[in-house]
C-alpha cells in the first residue's frame, strides 16, 4: 500500500522541517533548523544534491515550489523573519528576492495557483500575512494583511483556481474571472478564509472548531466538483475537514476526521484530493480516506523510520 521507493539522506545537521517535491515529482527540496535549504534530484530512486542554499539566519520552516511555467523557483521561509525566493538560472540556484517585511518568524509560504501569476502568500508569527506578487523585472509588490491571526499565523494554503460556475466550458481566449481565495490557520485557533475583492484582501470566513492552535491548513485540489474542501489540524489533536458546497463560499461545515492524542502538525492532500496525509499525533503519519458514506477512515500508518507500512486494524483505530 505504501512502500518506500527512495530514502534520501539529506545530510542536514539539524531537524528537517519540510520536504516538498516539485511539480513533476522529480526534485526534492528540504529545509532544516540548520538554516539551509537543499534541493535533490531524486529521479529513478537516486539522490543527487543540486543545491545547498544558504541565506537564512534561522531555522527554515517551509519550502514551496512555484509552478514550472515560471521556471524553477523555490520559496523558503524562516524563523529569521525572512522569506527568500530562489531561482535557478543557467543551472545555478540563486536568491532572486528577499522579503523582510515580517516582524517575527515566517511560518508558512504557499504559491498561488499558476493561473493568477506568481503570487506567494506568507504567514508569520507576527500575526500578519503577506502577499508577494511578481510584477516583472525582478519587482515584487507586497500586500499585507495585518493582524490576520493574533499571536501568529501558522499556515497558508491557496484555493484551487476555479472559476465560479462553469468548470469545463470556458470561453476560450478570455481571461477567466477567477476569485482568489486562500485559507490560513493561526494561534487564535481559527481557520480564516481570505478573498480578494477589488485588489484588497478581506476576511471572508472565520471557521471556528479548533480549541487550540491551528497548525496547518490544506485546501484540497479541485477535482472538478463544486465542493470546496479544506483540511485543518491543530495543537488540540483534532483534524477537521471543512466543506463548502455553495458557490458564494459562505457556508462551511466542519467534520471531525479524528482526534489524535497529540499535536497534529501537518496535513497534505493527494493530487486527486481523495487521500489526506496527517502528520503528527505522536509523530506518526497516517493516511485517511473518505468512505462512500462520508466517514473518514485511516487506511494506513506510515512508519517513517522503517518506511514500512502497517495496516490499521479496527482495534487500533478505535484506540486512537
Amino acid at each position, binding site marked *: *500500500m*505504501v*512502500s*518506500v521507493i527512495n*530514502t*534520501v*539522506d*539529506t545530510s542536514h*545537521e*539539524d531537524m*528537517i*522541517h*519540510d*520536504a516538498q517535491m516539485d511539480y*513533476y*515529482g522529480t526534485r526534492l527540496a*528540504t529545509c532544516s533548523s540548520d538554516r539551509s535549504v537543499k534541493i535533490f534530484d531524486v*529521479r529513478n530512486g537516486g539522490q*543527487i544534491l543540486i543545491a545547498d542554499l544558504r541565506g537564512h539566519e*534561522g*531555522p527554515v*520552516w517551509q519550502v514551496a515550489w512555484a*509552478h*514550472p511555467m515560471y*521556471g*524553477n523557483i523555490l520559496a523558503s521561509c524562516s524563523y529569521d*523573519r525572512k522569506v527568500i525566493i530562489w531561482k*535557478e538560472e543557467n543551472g545555478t540556484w540563486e536568491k532572486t528576492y528577499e522579503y523582510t517585511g515580517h516582524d*517575527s518568524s515566517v511560518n508558512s509560504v504557499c504559491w498561488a495557483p499558476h*493561473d493568477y501569476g506568481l503570487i506567494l502568500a506568507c504567514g508569520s*508569527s*507576527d500575526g500578519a500575512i503577506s502577499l508577494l506578487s511578481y510584477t516583472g523585472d525582478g519587482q515584487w509588490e507586497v500586500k499585507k494583511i*495585518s*493582524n490576520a491571526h*493574533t*499571536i501568529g499565523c501558522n499556515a497558508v494554503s491557496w484555493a484551487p483556481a476555479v472559476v465560479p460556475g462553469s468548470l*469545463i466550458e470556458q470561453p476560450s481566449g478570455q481571461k477567466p474571472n477567477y476569485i482568489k481565495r486562500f485559507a490560513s490557520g493561526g*494561534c*487564535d*485557533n481559527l481557520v480564516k478564509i481570505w478573498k480578494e475583492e477589488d485588489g484588497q484582501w478581506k476576511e471572508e470566513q472565520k471557521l471556528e472548531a479548533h*480549541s*487550540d492552535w491551528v497548525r496547518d491548513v490544506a485546501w484540497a485540489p479541485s*477535482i472538478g*466538483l463544486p465542493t470546496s474542501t479544506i483540511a485543518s489540524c491543530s*495543537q488540540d489533536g483534532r483534524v477537521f475537514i471543512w466543506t463548502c458546497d455553495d458557490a458564494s463560499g459562505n457556508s462551511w461545515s466542519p467534520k471531525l476526521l479524528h482526534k489524535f492524542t497529540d499535536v497534529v*502538525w*501537518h496535513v*497534505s492532500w*493527494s493530487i486527486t484530493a*481523495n487521500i489526506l496525509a496527517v*502528520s503528527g499525533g505522536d*509523530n*506518526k*503519519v497516517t*493516511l485517511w*480516506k473518505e468512505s462512500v458514506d462520508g466517514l473518514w477512515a485511516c487506511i*494506513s500508518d506510515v512508519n*517513517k*523510520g522503517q518506511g514500512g*507500512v502497517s495496516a490499521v486494524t479496527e482495534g487500533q483505530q478505535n484506540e486512537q
Partner: protein
Amino acid sequence: MGSGVPRGQWERRSPSLYIAGRAPQALFPAAESKMKLKEIDRTAMQAWSPALQHPIYLATGTSAQQLDATFSTNASLEIFELDLSDPSLDMKSCATFSSSHRYHKLIWGPHSMTTGESVSGVLIAGGENGNIILYDPAKIIAGDTEVIIAQKDKHTGPVRALDVNIFQTNLVASGANESEIYIWDLNNFATPMTPGVKTQPLEDISCIAWNRQVQHILASASPSGRATVWDLRKNEPIIKVSDHNNRMHCSGLAWHPDIATQMVLASEDDRLPVIQMWDLRFASSPLRVLESHTRGILAIAWSMADPELLLSCGKDAKILCSNPNTGEVLYELPTNTQWCFDIQWCPRNPAVLSAASFDGRISVYSIMGGSTDSLRQKQVDQLSSSFGNLDPFGTGQPLPPLQLPQQTASQSVILPLKKPPKWIRRPVGASFSFGGKLVTFENTKAQQQPGIDQQQQQRHHVYVSQVVTEKEFLARSNQLQEAVRSEGFVSYCQKKIDMAQADFEKNVWSFLKVNFEEDSRVKYLELLGYRKEDLRKKITSALNKESLADGELGEAPTESDASVLNEAGEGQATEEQLLGESLKDHNRESEDSVSAKKTFNISVSGDVDGLITQALLTGNFESAVDLCLHDNRMADAIILAIAGGQELLSRTQEKYFAKMQSKITRLITAVVTKNWKEIVQSCDLQNWREALAAVLTYARPEEFAALCDLLGNRLESEGDSLLQTQACLCYICAGNVEKLVACWTKAQDGNNPLSLQDLIEKVVILRKAVQLTQAVDPNAVGALLAEKMSQYANLLAAQGSIAAALTFLPANTNQPNIVLLRDRLCRAQGELPVGQEALKTLYERQPMPKARAGSVAGQMQGPQPPAQQYYQQGDNPPPPGFIMPGAVNPNMPPQQATSSSYNMYSQAGARPAYPQTYQATQQYPFGTGGPAAYQPQQPITAPASASYPNPAPNPTPPYLPSAPSHAMPSPLYPGQPQPSPTSLNPASSFPLPPSGASFQHGRPGPPAPSVAYALPTGPTGPQNGWNDPPALNRAAKKKKVPDNFMPPVPITSPIMNPLADPQAQMQQPPAPAPPVGAPSFQPPHLPAGQPVLQSPYQPAPQPLGPCIVPPAVSKTSTEGAPGAPIGNAIQHVQALPTEKITKKPIPEEHLILKTTFEALIQRCLLSASDPQTKRKLDDANKRLEFLYDKLREQTLSPTIVSGLHSIVKSIETRNYMEGLNIHTHIVSTSNFSETSAFMPVLKVVLTQANKLGV
C-alpha cells in the same frame, strides 16, 4: 500545575515600593506593547486555567501583599477570558466574586475536570490567615453565591505556596510559616497529610513544587535559601539543597519539565540575583548559575512546552527568558519600569505568558513577538475619539501626530527569541506529490534531549514512498490495457458480461461486444430482446398448435422442416414453416383442387366487385384502385396499385395512410416512408427498445448514428431515471463516445475511481470499435472526454502508474489539459523535456492565448507523437542536463517511443504491430462496408411484376385481406441471416460522416433482415456498393444459406414499384404491405391471452408474389397457381388476428354459417373430454374467423358459399357425414387458395362432431 512561584517577603523589607500606582507613562504603554496582547488593571495574584480548559481563562485574586492607591482592603476573585480573536487589549471579564479574603497564592487545578467547553477544575487559594479555600470556577462564572467548595484554616500563617500534583490532580501541596507543609487530597479534604517531619529550624515555606516526572517527589524552599526534597513514599526529606551561601533567598523553585533530577532555585537577594540550576545527582553545588538579573528575582516560570524557556522577573524591572540548560538569555521582554512580582506561562497556549506588576496591572504577552501596531493604533484612536479628533481640547491648535516612543522601532529589529521555541519546530511532515508519491520526514524525540550531543549522529532522512490505495482500480486498468494491447476486445467484453452484477451493466457490455462481432445490428436486436431463438420457439409453438389441429388430417411437420428452420434465419424460418404447412395442405388437397382451378369466375355484375372487374378488364387501374379504396378494400387497392405503376402506388399509399388511424399506422408509415426520425422523436419512451430495434433494422448507415443519438437524447432528457441510463445503450449503438461519457457521468458517482474505471473501460472499448469501423480521427477528443481521460490519467498517476497514465492520454490532441498532463507525466517519468519555453507557452495559451501558442500547439498535433518530439525515454542515460536541467539541449534528438509509450489512441492502421486482421474487420462493420447486406433494396423489380401472372384477373385475391393485421411485426422483428463479410465493400466507397462533431458510428451491422427482403429471384446479380442498383442475389452468395433456402420477400416488395429507380428504392426501407380492408392494426404490444399475442413478433409471412417462390417450394407446388401455395401459408398465419379488429358485419344471409359452426364447436367442446381435442376445437373456432372474414368481405365465390350453406343444413340435421361429403366436394371444386384457410378446419370440426355424436 503552576509551579510554585513564591512571593518574596518584600513586604517587610521595603513596603513603600508596593503601593501600586499608575505611572504617567503607563497611559501609552507603547514601549512594552510590542508583544503585549492584553492587560487588566488589577493588583492581583493570577492563575491560568489548566491546559485542558478551552477557552482559556485567567483567574485573578486580590493580592494580600499590596494595597492599591485607594488603600482599599476589598477583595475579589475574578475570571477573565483570553479571546485572541478580539484584537483589543481588553480582557473580557466573565465573573467577579466579592471575597472576604485576600490572597497570597492562587492556582487553578485540573481536578475533576471535564473536557468540553464548560469551565471546570478547582481554584485553590492560599489566604492570609492560614486558610486554604477551594472555589468552583464554574459557579463563579455562573454567578452563584455559593462558590466555595471547601475551606480549611489549618496553617498557622499566610499560605504562600501551593502546587497541584500533575499525576494525581487531587493532591495539592501547601506551604506556610513554621515549616508547615500539608498534602491535601481534594477528594478527602478534611485531614491533610504531611510529607514528613518538619524541617528544623522552623522557617517560612515560600515555594513548593511537585516533581514533573516522579509523582511522589515534592520540593519545598524557604527564604533562608534551603530547599528540601521530600519522598512521600518514605514520608521524609531525601535531600536538602543549599549552596551554603546565606545570601540565597529562595523566591522561586521549579522542577525541570523533562529531567526528574533537575530543578532551579531563584534568589530574591539583590546581592545574589541568580538562578541556580541543580541536579540532585550532584547536590553539592549548582550545575549552573544564571546571573542575568541585576537585582533580586521575584518570580520564575519554567515553560512546560519547551524546557529551554525559563521566565524570570526581578527588581531590576526586567522580564527575561533564558535557557536554563545553557544559561543563555534568549529574550528580554520590553516592559515598563515597574517590577513584576508574579509571572506565569499559560498552560494551554505555549506562547502566552502573563506578568503581574506593582503598578497595578496584569499584562498578557506573547513570547513570539509580533507587531501590535494595530492595537496601539486602536488605543490612540480610542483616545482621540474620547478627546475629540485632532483638537481634543478645543485649543484651536490641532494636536501634532502622536509620536510613538522610539523604543518600539528598535525593538522590531530584535528577534523575539534567539532560538525558536520547541512548539513551532515541526518535527514531522508528510506531503503528497505528483505520481502518488508521499514525502515524509521525521525527527526523533531523542534529539530534543538536552545535554546529549547526538544531533551529529542523527541521520536526517527524507523518505519517498509510493502510495497505492486503489488496487482494484489498478488491476482493472491493467486488464483494460492488456485487452487493448492484445486486441482481445471480444473476450474482454465477454469477461465483463460474465462478471457484471447488474443487468444494465451486462447490457452495456453486451452492446459493446457486439461492436466487435459480425452482424452487429442483428445482435443489437437480439440484445434488445428480439432473439432469433426465442422468436423461433414462439413461432414453432404457434405452428405446432396448428399441427395439432391438422393432426387429425395426418399432417405434422417433419424433422426436415425443423432443420430447415434451424438453419434458416428468423424470417425465413417462418416462411419455411408456413410454406411447409401450406405445401402439406396443398399436397393433400391438390388432387381435389385441380378441377377447381379450371373454373374461373369473372363477375361483371353491377356491384362494386363487378365494377372493379370491369375496370380491370379495361386496364383502368386507377379507377379500379379508386373503387377499392372507396369500398375500403385497402389490400385490393394496394395490390392493384402495384400493377398500376409507381405513381399510382404512391398516391394509394398516401390515401391509405390518411385513412388509417390505428396506433401502428405511424410505424407502418415510417417503414414505408423511411421516416424513422418521426418514430424516434415521437415514440413512447417506454417503447425505446422497439424504436431502437426499428432503427437498427431499417436505418440507413448515414442516419443510423444520428437516430440512435436522437433516441438517446430523448431518453436522457425526457425519460425517468431508469430510462436515462438506457440512453447509454443508444449512444453505444451510435458509437457516440462523447455522449456516452456525458450520460454515464450523469448517472454515476464520478468521484469514485472504480466508477471512473467503469466508464473508461467502456469508452476505450467503444472508441476502439469506432476506430475499427469508421474513418474518424481517433484522436478527436471532445472536451468532456478529454476531461474524463485526464481525470483517469491523473488517477492512474496518483497510484504511481505514470506509464499507464500516458497510454490513456489521447496522443495528438491539442486539448490544453491533456497536453499539459502529458508534459507532466513525461517529466515525472524522468524524461527531460526541452527547455521551459514550450511549457510556458502552453500554459499561456490557456488563460490568454498568444500567437506563439499556435505553433506549439501545432507541433503537439504534428504527425509524430509528442513523446517523440519532446521527451526522452526514461531508460535513456541522463543527458548532460540531467543534473543541470537548464543546460538541456533543446535540439536533442527525439527518442523513439518505446513500448511504454504505447498508446491507447494510436490508430489501428497506423500501428504495424497490430494484427492485420484488424484491417479486415475494420472494413466490414463500417457503414461503408455493409451496404449490400443492409440496403433495404427492393429486389422485386422487373422480374417480380413480370412474373406476376395475373394481377388483374382475380378480383378477389384470397391471400390479401388479412395480411395487414399481422404484417406489422415483420419489419420490426425480423431475425435474419448474417451478412457475410464477403459481400462487403471496401470502406472507401462510403462517404465519411459530414462532420466530426460526433462519432458517427458506422453501423457494422446493416439491418440484416433486409437481406431477406433483398433476396429476390435473380440468381445472378452484381456485388454492389451501397449506392449501386440493388443486388438481387445476396442469398445465393451467402455461405450459410441452405440449398433450399427460401428467401422471404419483404412485404413491400410487391408494393414498391419494381420499376422504380433502384437508387431511390435503396433509400427506402422495406415497407409492410398495407392492409386492405383491415382498417385497424394490431398494436405492437397486444394484450396477453389471445393467440395472437403468443407470437406478437412473429415474422409475418408476406403476401409473396409468385415470382419469389423459392425453387424448392416451387417444385412441390408446380401445379398450383403461382400464388396459391403461398396464399395458403398466409392463411395459416391469419389465425393470429383477433376479434378486436373492427369488422364489417357478416351479411345477414350468411350469419347462419357462423352461428351454426360456433354452436357446433360449443357442443363438441361440451362433450369432448380430452384436453387435446378441446384445444383443437378452440383453435378451430378461432381459425374459422378466416371464413367469417371472407364472408364479411364477400370475397368467397358463390359456389363455396352455397356449399357451406349445405354443410350447415347437414349440421342442423346432425348428419355430419353428409357435411363431410359436401366439404370434400367444395374443396375439390373450388380454388384451393380460396378455401385453404378454413376448409381444413371445418373438416376437423365436422369430423369431431361426428365422432362425438353431438
